[in-house]
């Protein structure tokens, strides 16, 4: 197996882990009244940890179909499709087909990484909540980022082979 395909395999493996591993933990707080909420309605202050797939599932369950579909497209289908195109491109010997695939990859690639933006947005929004609620990135987010970095390395390697 050549280096490019090895990087695609690593990126795919990390993507699989990153989609299902804990990505975001939310610590709800109710400011000065936190202690009384803990007694009266402790479930309201339960700490929640989500994976990317968990967030998509939650969005589906709460009826936010549009958001769920957008997030699924950008964080699941688009990266998988991109990696599939990469794998296919590495096996091509015809330069015309190779360049055509690279163009498609760049098109699909524009829709990836949107989930990183979504995570950043969630954290910013939660940190601005009153009551001291906080959100923290979990290790799944870093795994996902490494998958994206591997995928970028693959992209650079294929670009350098452009004929």
């Amino acid at each position: 197996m050549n280096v490019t395909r090895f990087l695609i395999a690593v990126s795919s493996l990390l993507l699989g882990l990153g989609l299902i591993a804990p990505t975001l933990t939310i610590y709800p707080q109710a400011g000065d009244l936190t202690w009384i909420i803990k007694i009266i309605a402790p479930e309201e202050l339960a700490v929640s940890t989500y994976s990317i797939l968990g967030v998509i599932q939650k969005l589906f369950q709460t009826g936010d179909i549009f958001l769920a579909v957008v997030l699924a497209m950008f964080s699941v289908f688009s990266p998988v499709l991109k990696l599939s195109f990469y794998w296919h491109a590495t096996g091509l010997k015809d330069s015309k087909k190779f360049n055509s695939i690279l163009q498609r990859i760049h098109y699909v690639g524009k829709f990836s990484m949107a989930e990183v933006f979504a995570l950043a947005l969630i954290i910013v929004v939660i940190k601005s909540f009153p009551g001291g609620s906080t959100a923290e990135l979990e290790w799944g987010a870093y795994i996902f980022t490494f998958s994206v970095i591997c995928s970028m390395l693959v992209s650079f390697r294929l670009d350098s082979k452009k004929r």
Partner: protein
Amino acid sequence: MTDISDFDAPKPPAWFGAAIPLLIVLLGAGFYWFITTDKDNGESEDTSNSKINLSGRLSPGQTYYIFASEVEVYPTNLKNESWDQGKKGPDIRYRLFWKGNAVFESITKDDSLIADWSGLSIELNWKDLLGKSVSSDDAIKAGRIRFEEGEKIEIAVEDVDIASDDDVGRHEIEMDKLSIGKNEFKLKKTASSAIRKITLRVLPVGSNIEDLANIMK
């Protein structure tokens, strides 16, 4: 006999290899799911062993919050007369004794034959709203008593009067008979006790406030 060589074998379509990344993604996700499912089961077993017991008998060496959530007294006092000369009901207060010392004294419940205490004392003052934090120790109004086998506690109930407090009665309880949560004791009237019923609540110290609130319900 026909011999099919590699050259003759049908080749998979070019896009077939494109499914490999998808399979690896599924493999990665499946692997994580597999190891965490196993790990979760293991962890839940571990935590159940180390967790503070929230039901059943008391554990030796463990400290507990103990308070009376309800005390009912007979309609007449030790002299078989109406309480407070029949003008009002008794003003009931109780004290918990452990090893000969009063370890807790309740607030007084005025004019009641059945007095009740929540065990949680949360007074919403302005200073609370302005950021004072209240711990479970502050919020729980109960005696802290460590359980040892053969240990006894005593509850002394009084009718609080301006002139002098009158004894309603005392009751000794063997801690071996207590269990976590609600404990009821129905008593007969005697020459030295007019207590009809005592409901004691036992809560383990060190459990979180959510568990304590559930036990108190």
